[in-house]
C-alpha cells in the first residue's frame, strides 16, 4: 500500500533544482517525503500511528550555502512552487507541514560557525546548526549562548529564531529574540537581506516561522561559561505562595537562570526529591511508576486511568496542595551567592520549606530526557501535549484557573510556571487524555486545544510563549493580533509577494 501520494512537481523543475544543488542533495523518495511531512506536533504522531501522511512535500532539498538557498527560492518564486524551510523538525505546532506540497528546504547542512568575537561577546552561525552542536562549538571556546530548550538535540538555530523559542535558562539569558544581534535571510523573492543594515526589521522577522524569509545566518550574543551554578528547591504549602515568592524575587532584581514552580499534581508526580528520581515530565513519571509496579499491564493501566480524568483532577484538588519550586542561579560566584541568599529569603518569607540542592540538581541532570519518550504514551492509546501561555502577574492566577476550568473535565491536567519575568510569567500546561478510537482521539485532541486557547485569550493570556503558532494555532491568530494582522500581511506582501513561503501558516 502506498502511504505517501506521488509527488506533483514536474521533472523539468526537478532538473533545474538539481542544476543548483546537484543530484545527490535532493530526494523524491517516499520515505524522505514521509519524514518531512511532519514535525513533533503530537497530532502528527496520531497521524503517523495510523499510517497517514496527508501533507508530504514533493521534493526535499539540502542546500549548503546562502547562494544556493537564494537560487532555490528564486526558482520556486518563478514557478509558483511552495517552499518550506526545515530545521530539525523539533517544532510542536506543525509549523513545517508542507500544506501545499512543493519544496522542503532542509538547512542542516548549513551548520558552520562563521565568526567568533569574544571581545564583543558575539558569534555568527549558519542557521542549520543543531542547538547542542552550537553549544559545543561555543563551549570549546569557553562560551555559551545560554539557550537550552528541551529539544536542543533535534532543533536548529533557524528553528529557534523562526518560532521565538525559549530555553530552560531563559529567566537569566532571555529568549532567542533577546539573543540575536542580526540575521541574514533570503526573502520570498530570492533577495538576500542582512538586518545589520536594517536593524528596524529584525524583530519583525524573528518569529515569522518561515513565512517572510529563509534564515541562513545569525549573529548572536554569547556569554563566558558561568563561573558558578547553584540549584536549590523549596516546597510551599500553597501554589499561590510559590508564585508570590517568584514574583517578589524577580521584582527585587534577582535573575535566576532556572525558575520552575510545579502545581500540586505536577509536584506529586514529579516527586519532591524524596524517594523517586525527579523526572522532567509528570506523565512519564506516572508511566514510570506504573511500569515499576506492573511491568506488563502499564499501557492498559495508563489508559484506564485516563478514562476518568475529571475524577483524577478532583482527587488531586482535594488531597494535593504542596508545590515544588526549583530555582537555579549561575554567573559570577559572588553574584550567584548573593542571588541565592535573596532567593532563600524570599521563599522563607512565604513559608517555603528549604529542600536543598537535591531536587534541582536531579532536574538539571534529566532536563532533556522527555522529548524522546512521548511516543510510548501514544503507544498506550493515549495522547499528551503541552500548552505554554503567558501573561502579566495580575492576570496569571485567572489564566491558570480559566484553562483548568476549560479542560479538566476531559483531560488529566497539570502545570508548571517557568520563564518568569518581573512583569509576568509563562504557564506550561500538560494535558493527557484518551478516547475509544483514533478518530475520537483526534476530535478530543482538537477540542481540548480549541477550548484551552479560547480560555487563554479570554483570560488575557497570549497564544504561545515559546512554541510558536505554526499550523495548530493558526486559526487563533486573527484574535491574537487583531488589526496587527494587517501589519503582518503587509510584511508578507513585501517580503513574499508570491506567497510561496510556508503557505497556510500563522493565520496568513
Amino acid at each position, binding site marked *: 500500500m502506498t502511504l505517501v501520494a506521488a509527488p506533483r512537481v514536474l521533472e523539468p523543475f526537478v532538473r533545474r533544482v538539481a542544476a543548483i544543488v546537484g543530484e545527490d542533495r535532493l530526494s523524491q523518495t517516499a520515505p524522505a517525503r514521509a519524514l518531512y511531512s511532519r514535525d513533533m506536533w503530537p497530532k502528527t504522531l496520531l497521524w503517523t500511528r495510523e499510517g497517514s501522511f496527508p501533507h508530504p512535500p514533493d521534493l526535499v532539498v539540502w542546500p549548503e550555502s546562502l547562494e544556493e538557498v537564494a537560487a532555490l527560492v528564486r526558482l520556486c518564486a518563478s514557478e509558483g512552487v511552495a517552499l518550506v524551510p526545515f530545521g530539525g523538525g523539533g517544532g510542536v505546532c506543525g509549523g513545517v507541514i508542507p500544506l501545499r506540497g512543493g519544496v522542503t528546504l532542509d538547512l542542516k547542512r548549513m551548520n558552520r560557525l562563521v565568526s567568533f568575537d569574544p571581545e*564583543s561577546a558575539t558569534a555568527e552561525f549558519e542557521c542549520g546548526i543543531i542547538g547542542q552542536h552550537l553549544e559545543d562549538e561555543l563551549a570549546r571556546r569557553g562560551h555559551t549562548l545560554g539557550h537550552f530548550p528541551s529539544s536542543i538535540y533535534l532543533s536548529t538555530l533557524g528553528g529557534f529564531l523562526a518560532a521565538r523559542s525559549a530555553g530552560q535558562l531563559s529567566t537569566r539569558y532571555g529568549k532567542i529574540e533577546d539573543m540575536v544581534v542580526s540575521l541574514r535571510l533570503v526573502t520570498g523573492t530570492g533577495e538576500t537581506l542582512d538586518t545589520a543594515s536594517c536593524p528596524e526589521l529584525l524583530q519583525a522577522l524573528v518569529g515569522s516561522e518561515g513565512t517572510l524569509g529563509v534564515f541562513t545566518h545569525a549573529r548572536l*550574543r554569547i556569554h563566558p561559561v558561568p563561573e558558578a551554578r547553584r540549584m536549590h528547591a523549596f516546597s510551599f504549602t500553597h501554589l499561590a505562595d510559590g508564585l508570590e515568592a517568584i514574583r517578589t524575587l524577580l521584582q527585587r532584581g534577582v535573575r535566576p537562570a532556572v525558575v520552575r514552580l510545579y502545581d500540586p499534581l505536577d509536584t506529586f508526580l514529579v516527586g519532591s526529591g524524596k524517594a523517586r528520581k525527579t523526572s522532567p515530565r509528570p506523565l512519564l513519571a506516572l508511566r514510570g511508576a506504573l511500569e515499576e509496579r506492573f511491568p506488563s499491564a502499564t499501557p492498559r493501566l495508563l489508559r484506564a486511568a485516563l478514562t476518568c480524568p475529571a475524577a483524577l483532577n478532583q482527587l488531586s484538588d482535594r488531597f494535593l496542595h504542596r508545590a515544588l519550586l526549583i530555582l537555579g542561579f549561575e554567573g559570577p560566584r559572588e553574584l550567584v551567592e548573593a542571588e541565592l541568599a535573596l532567593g532563600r529569603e524570599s521563599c522563607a518569607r512565604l513559608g517555603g520549606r528549604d529542600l536543598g540542592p537535591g531536587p534541582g540538581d536531579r532536574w538539571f541532570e534529566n532536563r532533556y530526557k522527555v522529548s524522546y519518550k512521548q511516543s510510548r504514551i501514544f503507544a498506550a492509546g493515549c495522547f499528551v501535549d503541552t500548552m505554554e501561555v503567558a501573561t502579566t502577574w495580575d492576570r496569571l492566577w485567572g489564566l491558570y484557573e480559566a484553562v483548568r476550568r476549560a479542560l479538566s473535565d476531559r483531560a488529566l491536567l497539570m502545570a508548571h510556571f517557568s520563564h518568569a519575568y518581573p512583569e509576568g510569567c509563562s504557564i506550561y500546561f500538560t494535558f493527557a487524555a484518551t478516547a475509544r478510537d483514533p478518530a475520537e482521539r483526534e476530535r478530543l485532541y482538537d477540542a481540548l486545544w480549541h477550548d484551552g486557547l479560547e480560555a487563554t485569550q479570554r483570560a488575557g493570556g497570549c497564544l504561545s510563549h515559546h512554541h510558536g503558532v505554526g499550523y495548530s494555532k493558526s486559526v487563533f491568530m486573527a484574535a491574537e493580533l487583531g488589526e496587527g494582522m*494587517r501589519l503582518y500581511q503587509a510584511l508578507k506582501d513585501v517580503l513574499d509577494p508570491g506567497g510561496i513561503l510556508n503557505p497556510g501558516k500563522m493565520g496568513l
Partner: protein
Amino acid sequence: MKIEKRSRTVEAPVETRLCELRAACVAQGLWPGPLVDLSPETTLGAALLARADRRSVRYGELWDRVLALEAELPGERLLRTRAAPRAATGPDLTRTILEARGRLGSVRVAWLRLWAVPGERGLLQLEGSLAVLISGTARVLRAGVRPAEVDLQGGRQGGRLLLAFEGDPALVAAEMGVARCVLEKAGLAPAAVAEAQKVPAVSALLETIPVEGAWSELPALAARALERLDATETAPARLVWLTHEAAGLKFPAPRGSTPEPRERTRADEIKAEIALALVRRCA
C-alpha cells in the same frame, strides 16, 4: 495614566509628560527607569519617537521598556498589542511599530515596565586612556553584571569611566564586587565614589561625529576618530549608547566639517514598501 502595582506596569497616553509619569510612579514606590526629559514639556510620545536614553544596561533603552502599545494604523484602524511579558505569536509588532517611528502607525498609548525605586546606588569610577576605558566597560558587561548607568568620556588627554549600580543593596554590593574584581584583573584601579565626588560629565556636544561598532572594533575606531580631531579640540568624546556587544561614541566634530549625506539603501526602500503595503491592507 494607570499603574498596575502587581505586574509593575503603567498604561500611559503618549501626551503624558515624562515629569508627570515619573512623579506618579514614584508616588507609588515605583520607577520608570531613566528618562531623558530635556524640558518639563517633553512627552512620552516625543521620547518614544526620539528613542531617548540608550545607556542603561539594567533598565534597557526606552523601547525595551514598552511592554505593549496602542497605535493608530492607516484608515484610523486601532492596533493594540497584547501585554504579555514575551510571546511567540509571530513578529513583535510592538517593536516593529516603535522602530518605524511613525511610518506604520502613530502610538497613542504605551504600557511601560516599572521597577522599585532603587534602594541603593553605588558608583565605581576609574581613569585612563579612552581605549583602556572602552575595554574595561566591555569586560564589565561580559561578566554578566548590569550597571544602571555607564558614563564614559575621554579624549587625547585620557578620560574617566563611571559605573552606577542600583537596586537591592545586596545585589548592588555583589555587582560592584564583581565589576571591581574584573577591572582589577585587567590591571585597572576602580574606586568607589560618592555621588558628590564623581567627576561631572561635560555638557552635551552639539556638532559631533558618531563612531559606532562592536566592542572589539571600538578602540581602533576611537583612535582613528581622535586622529581626525582638530589638534586644538579639547572637548572629550562621550559614550552615547551601548549594548552587550557594541557601543556608540560621539566625538566633537572638527570645525567647519559637514556630515556626509546618507545614501538611500535597499533597506530604506523595503521599509517604504512595507508602509505602502500597510496602507493598502488598511484601505
